[in-house]
């Protein structure tokens, strides 16, 4: 065995962006290749589950797992990787917090399948074929992965050592996280790597343009205002989640003229991202009567769960919509 660091990369319910995030390291990738040996990466290398099964336990130094846990297959694979790895890193918002797929927790499994296979306007399915867990093809019985009742973040299924935030994690953050991991000087377990310990405002150039008090009479969506890019967006009435979001991204969205949507998740001291976000917004809305506030929320924050829990619904205290007692989410 070489003295290179043995690394595995795996994807669960993800869009592929996190895989891309590795490729985005560009020339740094070459330097990385000198230090690491990739033992498992289904996207790039043709390897099967059985290959991993054959590895001795804890023989992988670091496994980077991205995507939320949506299928029984994901559950199986991450448990397997956990057994085979010394360190497991949840890579990207979905593995970290449940991510955008986690918003599916607002619907039941049946509702989702029904919509996706029968009702969606782009679907043509005259026979009403629905996915089954066991199918017969040419006399052969095939077993397909099961759709789980709820999407979960990685640490709701296995023990996770570190997190790399972002949707997807920007190259700088990935690089910094890798440097930390490869340096051998490991931070305390549970740390979020490559990012800041303070909220985005701390590194935002526009923070100093904030007025002494921000009390909002009106909320605006980005397409409804001509944003002054040199002034704090929040102060202009645009719902920026920078204050409640971990910094470290280098304010990429802000620099691109878009408010922060919160993909880096909450700070260490915050238990529930969306609840915090809502709490801070509610505090600075300056209304005398409730009806007025309700109207603004309805008009501008039309989809509160989508706003405040865009990346973190599975990790929230409620985890998703209540689907009757006895469920896995409510133990």
């Amino acid at each position, binding site marked *: 065995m070489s003295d290179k660091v043995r690394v595995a990369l795996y994807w669960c319910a993800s869009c592929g962006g996190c895989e891309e995030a590795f490729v985005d390291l560009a020339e740094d990738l070459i330097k990385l290749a000198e230090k690491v040996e990739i033992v498992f990466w289904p996207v790039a290398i043709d390897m099967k589950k059985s290959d991993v099964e054959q590895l001795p336990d804890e023989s992988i130094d670091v496994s980077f797992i991205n995507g939320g846990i949506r299928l029984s297959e994901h559950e199986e694979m991450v448990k397997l990787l956990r057994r085979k790895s010394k360190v497991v890193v949840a890579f990207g918002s979905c593995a970290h917090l449940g991510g955008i797929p986690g918003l599916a927790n607002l619907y039941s499994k049946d509702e989702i399948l029904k919509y996706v296979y029968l009702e969606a306007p782009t679907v043509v399915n005259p026979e009403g074929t629905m996915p089954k867990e066991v199918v017969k093809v040419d006399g052969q019985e095939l077993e397909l992965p099961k759709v789980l009742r709820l999407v979960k973040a990685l640490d709701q299924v296995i023990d996770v050592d570190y997190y790399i935030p972002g949707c997807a994690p920007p190259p700088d953050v990935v690089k910094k996280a890798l440097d930390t991991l490869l340096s051998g000087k490991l931070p305390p377990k549970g740390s979020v790597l490559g990012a800041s310990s303070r909220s985005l405002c701390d590194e935002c150039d526009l923070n100093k343009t904030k007025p002494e008090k921000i*009390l909002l009479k009106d909320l605006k969506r980005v397409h409804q205002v001509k944003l002054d890019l040199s002034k704090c967006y929040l102060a202009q009435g645009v719902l920026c989640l920078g204050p409640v979001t971990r910094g470290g991204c280098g304010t990429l969205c802000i620099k691109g003229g878009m408010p922060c949507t919160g993909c880096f998740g909450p700070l260490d001291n*915050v238990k529930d991202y969306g609840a915090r976000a809502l709490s801070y917004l509610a505090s600075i809305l300056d209304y005398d009567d409730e009806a007025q506030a309700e109207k603004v929320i309805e008009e501008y924050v039309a989809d509160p769960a989508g706003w405040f829990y865009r990346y973190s619904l599975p990790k929230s205290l409620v985890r998703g919509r209540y689907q009757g007692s006895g469920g896995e989410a409510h133990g």
Partner: protein
Amino acid sequence: MSDVRIGVYVCHCGKNIGGVINPAKVAEFASRLPNVVVSRDYMYMCSSPGQALIEDDIKKYNLNRVIVAACSPRMHEPTFQAVLKRAGLNPWLLQMVNIREHVTWVHEDTPDKAEEKAEELIAAAVARAAHLYEITTEKAPVVKSALVIGGGIAGIRAALDLANAGIKVYLVEKKQSIGGKMAQLDKTFPTLDCSKCILTPLMVDVARHPNIEIYAYSEVVDVSGSAGDFKVKVKLKPTYVDWSKCTGCGLCVEKCPGRAPSEFNEGLGFRKAIYFEFAQAVPRKPVIDPRYCLWFTKGICRVCSKVCPVGAIDYEQKERYVELNVGAIVVAIGYEIYDMSKMVEYGYGKFKNVITGLQLERLSDADGPTKGKILRLSDGKEPKTVAIVLCAGSRDEKHVKYCCRFGCAAALKHVYYIKHSVPDSKVLIFYTDVRAFGKGFEEFYQKVRSWDDVYFIRGRPAEIFEDKDGSLVFDVYDSNTGQLINVKADLVVLESAVVPPKDWEPLRRLLKVSCDPGGFALELHPKLRPFETTADGIFLAGTIQGPKDIPDTVAHAAAAAAAAIGFLLKGYVESVPYLATVNEDLCSGCGLCASVCPYDAITIEEKEGRRVAKVNMIRCKGCGACAATCPSGAMQQNYFTDTQILSEVSTLAGGAK
């Protein structure tokens, strides 16, 4: 304090708790909870033996957390905190669990469940107690001086009381003279003594008092700092007279040809362009009203400057500002008459012979525009029939909802004025209720009722019309007799509603004092603390807190002064234990906490190249708004940190057993 050692004390409160649940069983349950070293029950924990039990245990078992499961912390938290103090523990290592109001009193019918609830609450408190920490408060010195805003009878009384207690007082009055509405009254009910005769000696006392500095014709424009150490910016409006030179001889006023409607006489009659508010004005220093002065309006005249023997006239004078540093502020800016022209149906402002009660005061005053004769404004004739309308604008959904509290008594006094000036007149009083509640009022009411040609009619006039001869006609539905009466009167007097002064709103915002639905200043407690406000160090005197007659105003002002004196002489202000504290490492300087703090206790400051929040310990009242807002979890509130609350809540959510 790494090693958490908890003592749990379950009180029977006689039968209050012990009659419903079994405290011994609950204590036994508690003894099995994590970190609990000792757990006991006792008949009355708050009694001396009960307290001694805890105190001894603290020493014997080396306890560093105490949980008392008894009544509401509002009741006995201080009692048990004192026990901890005596035993050498920080009082904030106490956690109370309310198993009386929250458990046995409300679940008497289901004792089993009540017992379970008590246990769960105690388990939650045990979880929370592990996260309690020592809290110390801080003291800041108090500046031994006071600002009194408004120089009516309330401000005068408060200023004198403060000054007599040895406190330096700055009295800021927006008009040329102190005195307020009381100076405009002819006589005062129910004793009918001359208003000015009892007021002006007090005004002179104020002027002469070595501890009082009057800023007349001035306004408060900025207030910063906090209780015990306010910085106040006062604007001295230009008077165009150098008051340091002026001797108050009044020659300028005498000779001035400029004429302006007299505010003091409520628009009846005129004053000069250079004027004193009224003859006995304090300070006796005139001001020029540039809106009417011929030099300012037409560039001619300058008579005043020619006659002034000391050369005090200064047409170039500009506004000036002074900065005052005071420990306490007494707000005494009084009230205003509701704009009666808003009640179009009564024709005030349109019909000359419809006047307000305060205008009648001016007509009745020997110093007034008619030398004390009550006459009709349209033709100068004596009114033979006078209608007095009570609750004009008051207790009226469309105008002012509350009662003015002195209109009824003032109306009785006004009957006297009219009968005194025009003995053969007929007076009709239209009332809704006659509220003669004050000392001596009922006797006064009975006396007025007994006079000839004085009629009390229960009803509010419908629309008032003017006759060709200037008299007024209207219909009234008399609810006592059920009849519609047709009235023709020579003069109508409206006992008008009262409202807070127009410039109260901006001042209120500066002072951060809340207001009631009528706009008047909101007291700290309607019964127990009626002259204090939610803003520490700011006190209320007189009618700015709500309508009052003079005796009530004076009592209120004296109480406010006493409270302010107590506050100032204590010598220090102390921070609240429930203080907000910032974890600077986590703080991003987003500034949202500062945005929501109702006490302006938070500033964002530069520190080592970045922005961080800073809490002013004395200003913070521990409301928790910032902690709930802080998106970083950097702002925490003592005794209510996220960790403390969450450990309690999650224990409750998980069940006690």
